[in-house]
């Protein structure tokens, strides 16, 4: 069978429907929402989008392996705390950022070890590390907000290069690297084949345990990077800032066409998914809905969109089956 869907053009074609939905949503909001169609607002949407994109790129790897990482949100909070704490001690900013990323990678290592080596259920393992990451951030911050008070950290969150937010540049670079990593390196292909069938990958000589551990470390580091950027925006660390992000990220990945079966999909679809969710989040508040409505609307929209994408995936699988049999 031809593996056509690994090509960039094919992947863009797969998410064509999503882009139509994004354009429709964009046009609708431009006419309906006051102040939506302005560079100021769209710039903010893109910043929100970049943060969602980074955390979802990590989540794409986890879901491509057929697993979910629900600890991503609290890893994000943990990295804001670690980064702010290190900077507040008077260390240089890059040490703080490295510390935040290392904390994320460490939680990712635990995830990968529990899932890949101990063979625990992925949900149980990441649920436990969710609690552990939240617990560590509460304990080291003593339940308080940590103020970094650093101009350099602030620059990462609110500074601009060529009049575009640094965060957006970071998001684009991470996306490009992730695309390259998954498509052009042998490790990327190892992730695909481990996700497709762990036992076959193992028999083909892939060290699947290593794949799991390294992949989950990347997932953790991605979540941590999103956390570092958030701490740049607020110049502080907060133990609850990342709550709920993991759910957004999972929804983005699913909407983007990476199914739960594993071994399929990629970050190109995730790009479109993140754009859609970022527009939706912004649109709901620009249309003047109160936060309580936002809860309900985002929940319902995600349920509907995910149901649709799951049903479409089922149909595609049936059609492929038919093709194979014929």
């Amino acid at each position, binding site marked *: 069978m031809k593996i056509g869907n690994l090509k960039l053009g094919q992947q863009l074609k797969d998410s064509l429907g999503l882009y139509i939905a994004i354009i429709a949503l964009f046009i609708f909001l431009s006419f309906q929402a006051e102040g939506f169609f302005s560079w100021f607002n769209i710039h903010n949407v893109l910043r929100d989008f970049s943060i969602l994109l980074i955390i979802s790129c990590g989540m794409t790897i986890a879901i491509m392996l057929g697993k979910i990482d629900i600890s991503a949100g609290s890893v994000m909070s943990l990295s804001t705390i670690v980064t702010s704490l290190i900077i507040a001690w008077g260390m240089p900013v890059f040490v703080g950022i490295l510390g935040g990323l290392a904390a994320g990678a460490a939680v990712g290592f635990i995830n990968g070890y529990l899932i890949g080596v101990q063979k625990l*259920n992925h949900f149980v393992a990441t649920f436990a590390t969710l609690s*552990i990451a*939240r617990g*560590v951030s509460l304990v080291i911050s003593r339940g308080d907000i940590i103020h970094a008070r650093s101009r350099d950290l602030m620059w990462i969150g609110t500074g601009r290069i060529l009049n575009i937010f640094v965060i957006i540049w970071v998001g684009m670079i991470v996306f490009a690297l992730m695309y390259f990593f998954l498509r052009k390196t042998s490790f990327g292909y190892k992730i695909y084949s481990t996700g497709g069938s762990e036992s076959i990958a193992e028999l083909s000589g892939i060290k699947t345990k290593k794949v799991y551990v390294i992949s989950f470390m990347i997932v953790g580091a991605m979540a941590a990077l999103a956390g570092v950027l958030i701490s740049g925006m607020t110049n502080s660390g907060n133990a609850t800032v990342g709550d709920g992000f993991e759910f957004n990220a999972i929804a983005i990945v699913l909407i983007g066409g990476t199914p*739960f079966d594993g071994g399929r999909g990629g970050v190109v679809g995730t790009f479109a998914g993140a754009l859609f969710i970022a527009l939706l989040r912004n649109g709901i508040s620009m249309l003047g809905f109160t936060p*309580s409505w936002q809860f309900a609307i985002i929940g319902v929209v995600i*349920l509907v969109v995910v149901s649709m994408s*799951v*049903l479409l995936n089922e149909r595609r699988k049936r059609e492929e089956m038919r093709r194979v049999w014929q």
Partner: protein
Amino acid sequence: MAMTGALNGNIKKVGGVLIMYYRPILLVGIIIASSAVIQDPVQNMINVFTMQAPYVLIYTMGMTLAIVAGGLDLSQGSVAAFSTCFAAMWIIQGGSDIVTGIIICIVVGAMFGMTNGIIITKAKVPPFIATYGMDWAARGLTFIMMGGVMIYGFSDEFLSVAWGTIFGISNIFYIAIALFVILALITLKTTFGRQIYMVGSNPQAAKLSGVRNDAVITAVYTISGALAAIAGLLFVSRLDVAEAFLGRDFALNALAASLIGGSRQGGGKGGVINAIQGVLIMLFIFNLLNVWRVSVLWHPLVFGIIIVVAAVLEQTRTAYMVKRLS
């Protein structure tokens, strides 16, 4: 696996007994440890058994059934909030009598559960996404419905449900025990109960043997929603206030208690008897932390470590049992 390998020689027998019955042994150990520190250990135990455990047990049983059927129910907390707030408005503002209010509450909870079941079976959305989306949607609806107010001032008749005692023991204890017995009989003695296990352990085989998988799964989520509503109602009766924030920790507690109790994520193993062990172990560990005056900030960390340890122990126990049988 490594731990099973270590159980050789003379210690094999002792280790085998320990690993087979680790849950009761752990429970007794924790109770002894907390009893050693405080002045009135009997009163402490009575408090946990009759005042704390019943609430947690009621909704954990729903979660356990969902886990046995191969899914999980993260929407319990907000379903409880919505159904109790809805019923409270009916009782206070609509002037309906208590029994009607209670029935309305349970029916609303069951309907939310049924919606979960339909989304999971018909739209084929993974249970995690379906119930988490429902969690957001129901919480948002509750916020919209309540508009930031709390409902209080229930009649003495309603409050006596949770405050009343029989033979000096709280009514809640008897309600929880009654529900436990009913559910234990359903799961162990009826056809429907055995079908839950079949669907959970091997959906294809169950379907081929004539089990209506979709109906069974929907029924399980309906029960889970109803149990969440009952637990929420008892909280309202105890606290004399219905508010939109009720039950924020339901899902996490229930999931942790089920996993500690030995219900396997992925389905087919566990049950309400495991739920009762899990609830008691979890509550007594937190009781121990409180007795030792550990700051509440440490709780999530301990929570996470408990889940990892419980999952690894359960895996070792299963491996040991498989080895002994073969």
